[in-house]
């Protein structure tokens, strides 16, 4: 009886998965160049968005070569992030963002403990020692999200049919771009999102003749 029930559940699950939609969000700039590191997410417009299910293990943002890696990390509300330092120099990771203010004072190797990102919003990370180091955590109230790769495409899968609001964010965007989409079948049409990017405002790292390493 138990085995039968399990089998039935499995079949139902597989059917549900087949019915679940996939949407390809293609991010392009004004010159039709593909844009990497854009975060796309969906919230239900016609119902209740499933509650975020943060992964049990912490997500990792490492510091390597005196840079954060990855540059952009989308997570669900409640996700824990650890910040291991792979460099031999110390880093001092901090955020002054409203969605998460924190500081990991000076460390090498593993950070003392993972940081819980418990509020939705954009969190800008910096290093108090190396001014050029910057990274973003996009904390989302939905389990449906993806980040665009080098080909500019973010793939959102396992989407139950319905109406959604698709939102896209990028570090060089003045405001998120939103549009409504409908997921009906297994494969929805690709969503091409045009992003008007501002100039890159990262602090320059390259040194100058006569200037010190730390200023």
């Amino acid at each position: 009886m138990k085995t039968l029930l399990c089998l039935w559940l499995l079949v139902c699950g597989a059917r549900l998965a087949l019915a679940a939609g996939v949407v390809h969000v293609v991010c392009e700039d004004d010159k039709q160049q593909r844009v990497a590191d854009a975060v796309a997410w969906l919230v239900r417009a016609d119902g209740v968005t499933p509650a975020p299910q943060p992964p049990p293990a912490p997500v990792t943002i490492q510091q390597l070569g005196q840079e954060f890696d990855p540059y952009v990390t989308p997570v669900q509300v409640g996700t824990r992030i650890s910040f291991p330092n792979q460099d031999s120099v110390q880093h001092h990771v901090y955020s002054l963002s409203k969605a998460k203010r924190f500081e990991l004072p000076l460390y090498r190797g593993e950070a003392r403990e993972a940081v819980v990102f418990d509020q939705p919003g954009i969190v800008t990370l910096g290093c108090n020692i190396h001014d050029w180091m910057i990274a973003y955590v996009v904390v989302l109230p939905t389990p449906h999200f993806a980040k665009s790769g080098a080909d500019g495409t973010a793939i959102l899968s396992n989407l139950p049919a319905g109406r959604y609001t698709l939102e896209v964010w990028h570090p060089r965007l003045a405001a998120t771009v939103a549009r409504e989409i409908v997921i009906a079948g297994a494969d929805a049409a690709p969503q091409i999102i045009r992003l008007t990017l501002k100039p890159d405002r990262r602090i320059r790292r390259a040194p100058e003749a006569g200037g010190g390493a730390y200023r």
Partner: protein
Amino acid sequence: MALNQSPLTPRIIFRRLHLALWLSLPFTASALFAQPFLTSGSLTATWHDNLTQAVAGVEHLAATQFAASLAAEHCHTLNRDDALLLGAAINAEAWSRYTGLDRATLGGQLGWRHRFGLGAYAPTLRLDLATAVVVARESARTGNQSTATLRASRRFSPETRLDLAADYGRQTARDTVLGQQRGSLSAEVAYDPNPQWRWRGRVRWANGDVLVYHPVTWTPWGWQHLHGYGAGYNYYAFPTSIVRTFGPPHHAHRVFAHTWSYSLGVSPAIGPRTALTFQIERAETAYDAISYINHALTLGVAHQF
């Protein structure tokens, strides 16, 4: 070194400083091999139009200075806001025409940085004490140099940064006439329209010793200025020496002057850790009623390892 043991306080302070910095040098020298140090190097070529600091064009001598430098800096953070900075630098300078000016320096640097708050936009105050041994091809110019620099910096946006600095430097030389002391105040604005390009403008006011050279000729009344420039001015009131740096004999007069200099630079990054630099500088120096102008044009490349 024939240093007077006069009770001049700055002199005594600098001597003690020397000692402290030299003691720390073996530690800082490991900078070049150990990773917790940020190591950077640069190559520059600077064309100077008026090496002799001459008033009259006929006495202007121009030459190009090629410099290579390797520096390592270690940031030892004390707490959230304070860091000690320990550095070592080695420098080699070669001159296109007047090789007597060629020199090498090896030095150490000790700094303290305080940040008023957290992050890249917090104002920063930094004090640096640096010292170096100077070995010049012309042995009369061999000696050591010390500099104290206080710098206040503030970044207003990812693009804009303002630096205000005050420094005091002292250089000794075997020929004491060729030693100099000078202080300066400067303001610099750096503007990076994007992470690749940087524009930089600086205004600086300096006050202290400068070496002014005049070609001289031997006469029955002793060495006389060749062109008669400055004849109405009593240069002999200043410490004077004869140098052969420029071929024919020149007087080196150590005069006390003030200088206004203006420089504009542009620096395109050619990689995340490599940048080129182009800079033009104009300086106007005056002592009493006499003034002269210098121009310098620099091309360089810097890399952070």
